[in-house]
């Protein structure tokens, strides 16, 4: 059992592997608890969510999700009895608390805003980024290093510092609280990541492919389109996911520059309140729905993660 297949003298012993494994697994399990707690809380009733001691075993309920998607008003029992039969599960749950559903909440429009702004800015950033990355990778651009550093340096600025003049500029241009304004801003922030990552990916594609294509009579543009782009698909997809995650998660700009129509989910979720304080099951439900896409993307991306978080500085 303990005689594992050690290939070299430096392979860690079976015992040290076992201890390392135990510590890592313990860390992973502890660090995942807050996320499991979010998920569990989203299926609790409001009284269960604030019980002491915190409830680990509870009767699951979708009240949190009902509260997330609706606004409710308190009514007298007589009024509620005078209404017809409940039209759905949410209706029924809400009536048990002497409330009636008054209408849809703002969560869905905010979530849709997040989708539009995240996908819109990702598309623009990856489009611009691919072109620039190809330009920097294949041509002798004067001052290339300075330009690349300039592109990256825009990432060093604290978002609040950038937000002050952007706020004024958008007010002048009528872009305040619009999806277009947010898409432009996120594109500008993401394009630096896109250029740096994609330049790394395109550098890895041998120039010989294009040169061969050009000898066959393709123009440079056709060669780019038919040989480089198909080769760079993985890199472009990974870059797109990184841009998407940034735009999806972004809070500071969204909180300062949007207030209503173009507000995204991150500044909205903390404002979900019920009667007498924060409605934690509803917040947890919103958080769960908001986080699931990122979980999926993280698993898809795990091989490219290192590259993405270091702007392509570390490749494996």
């Amino acid at each position, binding site marked *: 059992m303990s005689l594992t297949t050690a290939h070299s003298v430096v392979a860690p012993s079976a015992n040290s592997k076992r201890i390392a494994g135990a510590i890592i697994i313990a860390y992973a399990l502890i660090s995942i608890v807050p996320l499991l707690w979010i998920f569990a809380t989203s299926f609790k009733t409001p009284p269960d969510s604030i019980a002491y001691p915190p409830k680990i075993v509870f009767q699951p309920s979708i009240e949190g999700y009902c509260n997330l998607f609706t606004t409710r008003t308190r009514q007298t029992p007589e009024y509620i009895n005078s209404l017809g039969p409940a039209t759905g599960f949410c209706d029924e749950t809400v009536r048990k608390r002497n409330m009636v559903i008054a209408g849809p909440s703002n969560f869905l429009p905010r979530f849709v805003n997040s989708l539009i702004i995240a996908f819109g800015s990702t598309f623009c950033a990856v489009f611009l980024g691919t072109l620039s990355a190809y330009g920097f990778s294949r041509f002798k651009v004067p001052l290339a290093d300075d330009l690349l550093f300039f592109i990256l340096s825009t990432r060093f600025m604290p978002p609040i510092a950038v937000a002050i003049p952007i706020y004024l500029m958008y007010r002048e241009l009528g872009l305040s609280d619009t999806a277009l304004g947010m898409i432009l801003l996120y594109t*500008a922030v993401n394009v630096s990541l896109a250029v740096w990552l994609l330049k790394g990916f395109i550098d890895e594609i041998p120039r010989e492919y294009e040169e061969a294509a050009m000898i066959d009579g393709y123009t440079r543009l056709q060669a780019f389109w038919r040989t480089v782009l198909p080769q760079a698909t993985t890199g472009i997809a990974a870059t797109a996911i990184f841009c998407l995650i940034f735009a999806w998660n972004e809070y500071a700009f969204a909180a300062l520059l949007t207030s209503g129509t173009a507000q995204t989910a991150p500044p909205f*979720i903390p404002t979900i309140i019920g009667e007498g304080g924060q409605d934690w099951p509803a917040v947890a439900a919103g958080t769960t729905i908001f986080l699931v896409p990122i979980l999926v993307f993280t698993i898809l991306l795990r091989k490219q993660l290192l590259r993405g978080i270091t702007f392509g500085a570390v490749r494996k």
Partner: protein
Amino acid sequence: MLNRTAENVARATPEPLARKVRGISDKGLAWLFISPTILLLLAINIFPLFWAIYLSFTNYRANRPNEVVKNLGFANYQRILGDQDIWIAMQTTAHFVFWTILLQTLIGFTLAWLIDRKFRGHAFWTTLILVPMMLSPAVVGNFWRFLYEPQIGLFSYVISFVSGIPPTNIQMLSNVSLAPWSIIIVDTWMWTPYVMLICLAGLRSIPEYIYEAAEVDRASNWRQFWSITLPMALPFIMLAVLFRGIENFKMFDMVNLLTGGGPGSTTEVASITLKRQAFESWRTGYSSAFAIILFVAVFGLANIYVKALNKVKQR
């Protein structure tokens, strides 16, 4: 046959001319490809930056756009450098940057070192550990407020269960001495995986034969760690510290949602002060000057650090 002729033609013609014949010249194409990005950054990043520089010399207030704007010269800068509150905010920021980086580097490197033992199933557990860093600091940070609630919060409950302190006394967010730690804990929970991932790349970049040679020389494990593992992983550790340092210098999301700078101003980091000055007191000119100072500080520190990093790399 046709291809051959094309090839010959291409070879015979001087290079620049040959390219031109095929359509746009390479130089033209390069600018065509790069300029949209540069233009966008000029419009959304550089133009506003210059605007901010201009505003920093004035008494402009964004909530009174019709008031006459007065030129103040360097008065705003002088006032900021003499402002006690600003210095306290900078100290608070430095305090956060120091502790988060120290904890994240120590824990992150240890985790990477353990994962590098390559135990069975390490890939799965590594991916699981990486999850927190991909999530939105704002949305997840907001939920930590619930975990920190005295009594009903899971975090307070577990701490009181372990330590025996009554759960109502664990006021993570409203106690002056605990509030900074409430933020450091969440930041460390979230970003340790980041440092870990970069350190892991560093450890994996060390070639096996160096260890084999050390083994032949009968160097102890301890000795191998200090004279091979650590020095060779150092550039990676420094890269992680650089990225985390810049990010945490700008820290806003988590602080804004967890404590909002409070209680009092115990957790008021630079970004929070900036937000209060710019978007609550509407001292636009004054806060622009502060923003410029912050930007110069990050830029300068990052530059010094990158130089040090390159020196380590060359060794």
